[in-house]
């Protein structure tokens, strides 16, 4: 039957969830509405802005452009999954301390993009950081501080400073 909910069984931030979703549901909507994880934002809804970026099986993806059911059996990490209780992730700390956050709207997606980059490549070149940051639009900042924050975080995560 059209629109009949199907089972979605997937791990979000390390926790297994089982829910019934309509086939047309998008991953960003399921995260935000069904799982109440509203850190992931809705922006353009046409796959151009990137503020909806989450990590799926270790890779950065745009959650507004993926059917939720495609996450069945997979692992998703959202911004809510980064901090350990009160302890912020080094990327979060770097963004805050370096002044890379202006209005903040693009930041959850941007931090997830940075995490995906650094998990795959702990010592990226500036060009690689720039390319990653390019995947999320920022209407405020001009990107420089954000790129620098990622580099600072990379250094911390590699065990420096």
């Amino acid at each position, binding site marked *: 039957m059209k629109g009949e909910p199907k089972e979605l069984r997937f791990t979000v931030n390390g926790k297994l969830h089982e829910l019934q979703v309509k086939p*047309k549901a998008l991953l960003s909507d399921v995260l935000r509405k069904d799982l109440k994880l509203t850190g992931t934002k809705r922006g353009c809804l046409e796959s151009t802005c990137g503020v909806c970026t989450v990590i799926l099986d270790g890779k950065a993806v745009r959650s507004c452009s*993926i*059917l939720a059911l495609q996450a069945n059996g997979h692992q998703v990490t959202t911004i809510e999954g980064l901090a350990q209780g009160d302890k912020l992730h080094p990327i979060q700390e770097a963004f805050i301390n370096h002044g890379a956050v202006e209005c903040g709207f693009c930041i959850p997606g941007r931090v997830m993009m940075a995490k995906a980059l650094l998990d795959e490549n702990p010592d990226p070149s500036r060009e690689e950081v720039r390319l990653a940051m390019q995947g999320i639009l920022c209407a405020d900042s001009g990107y420089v501080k954000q790129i620098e924050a990622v580099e600072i975080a990379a250094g911390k995560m590699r065990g420096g400073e």
Partner: protein
Amino acid sequence: MKDFEYFAPKTVEESLSFLSQYKEESKIIAGGQSMLVIMRQGLLAPENVVDIKGITALNYITYDEKEGLRIGALTTHRAIEKSPIIQKHFGVLSEMERNLATIQTRNWGTIGGNLCHGDPAGDPAPVFIALDAKLKLRSLSGERIITMEEFSKDMLEVDLGPDEMLIEIQVPPPRLHTGIAHEKLMVMQGDAGIVGAAVSITLKPEDSVCEDARIVLSNSASVPLRVREAEKRLIGKVISSHLLAEVGEVASAEADPPSDLHASAEYRREMVKVFVTRAAAKALERAKIG
């Protein structure tokens, strides 16, 4: 978006059964990076969606010196971009992927989905045409092989039957003394090219005469367009920069580009000249080396 019936087959055979049952009422979704955009715009509303993204058997990149390259239809753009095999033997594919959309889109979107979407502004099809690639299609009745060029029929229309699936892309082994390049006009990296050109040039080693040439344009017609008159101008000649400029002009005359909010047809025609010349010059340099 309208509701639809949803199936998630795990194998090619299972998918083909669904397609054979629902035919025109069904549409395959792979990564959905193109398809979901038009579904949300209300331009596409299939009754039944066959989600093949989970078919791991179609996710592969293999290379054999005699057979060439085989890319499974569900290989992601990112996998192609990063593949050591592709970077070594078909570097132009990796270069093209680096400029395709964004990292997130490439992480989930598939090469098969891109080709079956049939966007004349798309980058992979012109490059595959320049590489003389073929596609393997399968239905419950059997398999057929079709050239990349023949696959494109019209804007967003490809030669794929309602009960057929794209299985793999086949690229012949690289030829000697052949260079291939892809260039496109982007405002921002990753944009669909306002126009784009994929060029392959093969030289005769003894005298550097052009033995073969393929020039394919994106966003310059309703399909990825092979500009054969322009190609003919190169064949049998030693290529000078003057000839490259002439070839750009001929290509521009063959093109039939659209006018839209990004550029007028007139501007696109001018840019065809520039980008054909640029891509051809790069291809020529590479042909001289390899």
